[in-house]
């Protein structure tokens, strides 16, 4: 492989990984945008999504087979279930805490995260479950750059979900209300918007997106595990902050940027791949020092 080939392949890798991060980061950013909460449990919702998808797939595979039909069906079911779980979490854990000190609500989010991951751990005995699907390794070969059909399907579905979300946010009344709430809650109340309802909806959508990503991960990587949400949660959080937390477009951009950073971070000459996380976190910190609101975040003017 020539250097160019390697770089092209890494570009492809980065974009695939990045679209994934973006999907999870969207949920983070939506929730943050609307109630200014860093939902640490988001990565765990992704994990729950993967497990529930796994469960549904084993249930429906008898009817629909383990191929695309079954996967799609279980993905949708998982999105709905996890969406409702997200709503439940918001109602039980976050709603009563909105008036509490900010740190307390963050700890609540951490606690919810621990409840979810430990709950799944207790249920599964900490085992890895094989998410066996019979998707092949065939793919497109362009020069020395190789992308499997599964990867293409993955990126396409992530893109579809994001486009749908984008459409929802920009074209529907509820989507517009969501953006408006992020700007000014009281003004929204005065427009006759039931703010609590919209917040609930936001949690539903954010969680459902995480679940979709979880199922896709389960299908693509082939295993699910109670711990799988942790790393991706961290990465998605990072991606959301890079893009400017609270910004939908920022989350998408941040996801791609982080994916590319990691892909090329593995490839930096002289230092090994073991430093790639130092590389991406280092860039993140530098970015925040010089542009504290992330790439697409808005600077807020505070009035006395």
């Amino acid at each position, binding site marked *: *492989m020539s250097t160019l*080939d*390697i770089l092209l*392949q*890494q570009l492809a*890798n*980065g974009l*695939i*990984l990045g679209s*994934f991060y973006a999907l999870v980061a969207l949920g983070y950013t939506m929730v943050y945008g609307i109630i200014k909460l860093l939902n640490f449990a988001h990565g765990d919702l992704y994990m729950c999504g993967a497990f529930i998808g796994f469960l549904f797939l084993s249930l429906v595979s008898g009817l629909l087979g383990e191929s695309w039909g079954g996967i799609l069906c279980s993905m949708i079911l998982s999105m709905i279930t996890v969406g409702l779980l997200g709503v439940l979490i918001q109602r039980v854990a976050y709603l009563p805490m909105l008036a509490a000190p900010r740190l307390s609500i963050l700890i609540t989010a951490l606690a919810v995260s621990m409840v979810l991951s430990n709950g799944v*751990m207790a249920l599964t*005995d*900490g*085992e*890895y479950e*094989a*998410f*066996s699907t019979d998707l092949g*390794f065939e793919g497109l070969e362009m020069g020395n750059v*190789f992308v*499997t059909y599964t990867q293409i399907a993955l990126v396409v579905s992530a893109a579809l979900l994001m486009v749908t979300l984008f459409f929802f946010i920009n074209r529907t009344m509820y989507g517009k209300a969501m953006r408006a709430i992020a700007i000014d809650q009281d003004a929204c109340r005065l427009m006759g918007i039931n703010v609590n309802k919209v917040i609930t909806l936001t949690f539903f959508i954010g969680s459902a997106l995480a679940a979709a990503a979880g199922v896709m*991960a389960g299908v693509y*990587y*082939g*295993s699910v*595990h109670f*711990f*799988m949400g*942790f*790393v*991706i949660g961290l990465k998605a959080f990072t991606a959301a902050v890079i893009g400017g937390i609270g910004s939908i477009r920022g989350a998408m951009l941040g996801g791609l940027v982080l994916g590319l950073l*990691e*892909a*090329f*971070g*593995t*490839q930096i000459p002289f230092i*090994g*791949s*073991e430093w*790639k*996380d130092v590389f991406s976190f280092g860039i993140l910190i530098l970015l925040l020092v010089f542009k504290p609101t992330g790439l697409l975040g808005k600077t807020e003017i505070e009035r006395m």
Partner: protein
Amino acid sequence: MKKSMLTAALGCALTGLFMLGQAATAADLKIGIMVPTTGSEATAGKDMENAILLAADEINQAGGVLGMKITTTTGDDACDPQQATAAASKLVSADVAAVVGGYCSGATLPTLKLYGDAGVPFIIAASNSTKLIDANQGNAFLVNSTGYDQVNTAVELFTSKGANKLAIIHQGDGYSEDLAKLTKEKWSSLGKEVVAYEVVNKGEQDHSSLVTRIKSKAPDAIFWTAYYADGALVIKQLRQAGYRKLIAVGDGSNSPKLLEIGGKATEGVFCFSNPTVDYLPAAKAFSEAYKKKYDQDPDAYSSLAYDGMKLMADAIQRAGSTDKAAIIKAIAATKDFKGIAGPISFTPKNTLAHSNFVTLIAKGGKWVLNK
């Protein structure tokens, strides 16, 4: 008011702790089991505990040791260094005559000091980082072959397959890094080339960029020295990216789960393994007894844990007393003890004298002995 309630609660908690640490009745032979029974490695730990309990049962049914019945106390190390020291203290406090167990090397490491200071004989059944050898104060014995033995087996395989350029991947924990490092040293000392030496973070799922990097170095063989869960993903992604040459995994990946998760991508992968029951003719009886008692198949380290307990009983019998120093002496003097995993004798460094590593290959979704 609130404060006094808090004080009371604290008091209760402390009392609870005292109770937990209390010693059992005398006239029994108390053996400690140290394995992770909670946390991410709980499955493996419980499997080992089961095997040890089974061995103890068998010994008791055959009349016990020196006329005493074996009773056991389990200390949960949770595969975490801090909790492991607590578990070791618990066992030492419970005044056990000896300890069998040890799964995660990182967790076992700091306990060596505690057992060493207390002079407690300790048979380490699964942990096998070479760091353990240096930290040993003479009271601990490794019945699992160490990294050195595994490296020899691995290098033998790679050489026999005509490999020259080797890529090594570990996972940034003590065990897999140790194995990777030793392999690298050995391979380089043979005048061959290690073209890639990489790390994968635990829990990360996407390894495509790493795969690209490794592929670009065109290695003849790839050695994954870490655990099965992430190993399966790495192998799958390597194969997906079109890498068709030799892939081998270390004993941490010796699990049917690797094949289950990796699917057809893992076909033809080599695995270095400590002797597990499936490949041990002598373990048939054990395997059946285990299935009967626990209604499940014994896992990778159960045979060694079982052997560890049996060896301990044998050594105490030979020592003729429960004096700790005498037991240690007796263990050290073990000569070809007939374990189900193979004969056990020790080197001066308390490691296994003869490696019992075998090489397996994945065929049709199953591990079979590589002939």
